[in-house]
């Protein structure tokens, strides 16, 4: 039962992209087409599952003080392995993902899960958590990419859709469309989800930088209150 919950929380309740708002950079950049989105999602999921397994297995060995650098080295190693596999077996995907493939290293979701879950839980639970989060990430990417590709390019996975292909809204596949679709999707999730819109407008829970970041944002709010 707990296993199922560990898996499903990543997909809906704690969806890393639409609810926790982590990993925004790859989400916006690679959701221009469905194929790219699925490729990015798969690559990130593999890295996420493996990094959760390795970090969870080593959680008693890694000293607490240098844990973040250790995690980064482990994750970078895994990303390099995935990068070489993609280069060898899917060179076209490698070309279209470009710089965003090595940038999985600095994806907040992966470091965030390592810090929040894998460093405190057993290996199997961590693997399931990583797989659930990865699936949630992939689904959110797929959803965004489907909207952007169908309406922006009139295609789905490269197959043309009759009416839409003649009436493209091509701005959707460009940068502004990414921000716009992402904003609208989060608004829809806020509307559907019964949870109240977050108080701080940028969900940093789970990001390893959250502590520092919230210091800046909190000092902001305090000053604003002072002025009021």
């Amino acid at each position: 039962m707990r296993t199922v919950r560990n898996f499903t929380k990543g997909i809906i309740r704690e969806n890393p992209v639409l609810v926790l708002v982590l990993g925004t950079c790859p989400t916006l950049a690679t959701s221009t087409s469905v194929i790219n989105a699925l490729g990015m999602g798969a690559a990130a999921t593999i890295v996420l599952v493996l990094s959760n397994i390795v970090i969870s297995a080593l959680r008693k060995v890694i000293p607490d003080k240098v844990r973040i650098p250790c995690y980064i080295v482990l994750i970078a190693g895994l990303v390099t392995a995935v990068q070489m596999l993609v280069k060898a077996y899917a060179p076209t995907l490698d070309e279209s993902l470009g710089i965003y493939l090595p940038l999985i290293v600095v994806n907040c979701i992966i470091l965030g899960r390592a810090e929040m879950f894998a460093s405190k839980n057993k290996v199997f639970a961590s693997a399931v958590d990583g797989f659930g989060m990865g699936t949630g990430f992939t689904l959110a990417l797929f959803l965004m990419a489907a909207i952007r590709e169908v309406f922006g390019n009139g295609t789905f996975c490269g197959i043309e859709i009759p009416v839409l292909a003649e009436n493209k809204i091509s701005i959707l596949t460009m940068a502004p469309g990414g921000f716009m679709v992402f904003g609208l999707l989060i608004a829809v999730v806020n509307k559907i989800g019964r949870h109240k819109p977050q108080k701080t407008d940028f969900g940093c829970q789970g990001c390893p930088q959250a502590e520092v970041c919230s210091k800046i944002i909190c000092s902001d709010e305090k000053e604003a209150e002072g002025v009021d």
Partner: protein
Amino acid sequence: MTKLIIILLSAVFINNYVLSKFLGICPFLGVSKKLNNAVGMSIAVIFVMLIATAATWPIQHYLLDPHDLGYLQTIVFILVIAALVQLVEIVLKRYIPSLHRSLGVYLPLITTNCAVLGVTILNNSENYTFIEAMVNSLGSGLGFLIAMVMFSGVRSAIEGNDIPESFRGLPVTLVAAAITSLSFMGFGGVIENLFA
């Protein structure tokens, strides 16, 4: 010289890291609420981008490439950047405490900022010379600064408006970012024609 100017201007305006390449979105959305924070963060980013490029370019060209170790790029670069940021923080704290007080809080945020790792990897994949790489890093950092400053202005205009409940917070910020990014698309093609 013309090439350097073109690299600089297109890094600032056309290939703006935040608004057209989606690198460094986290600080763009997280720290752009107030102008002075936005400026502080951007200056720290420019600073780290420059020293990161100055460190990683020689490593790539004199260490990794001659020994056929190109595949180690990701690991080496992220380690070098993380170590550099730590080092800079220590040096600033010891010798220029006033600068450390204003930038110090932003430095740890930058270690895992994709814009910094991104610029070092792109400098390599574009085959820039050392000078070109430094100019490109400077341009990318300046582009980040401009986007942050503009966007903090946009955000202060949003505040205090009556926004539908489900759009409050992040969604309306993202829609505003879309419009800001739209305005930057107007620069497309300008730079090439400027020197044609």
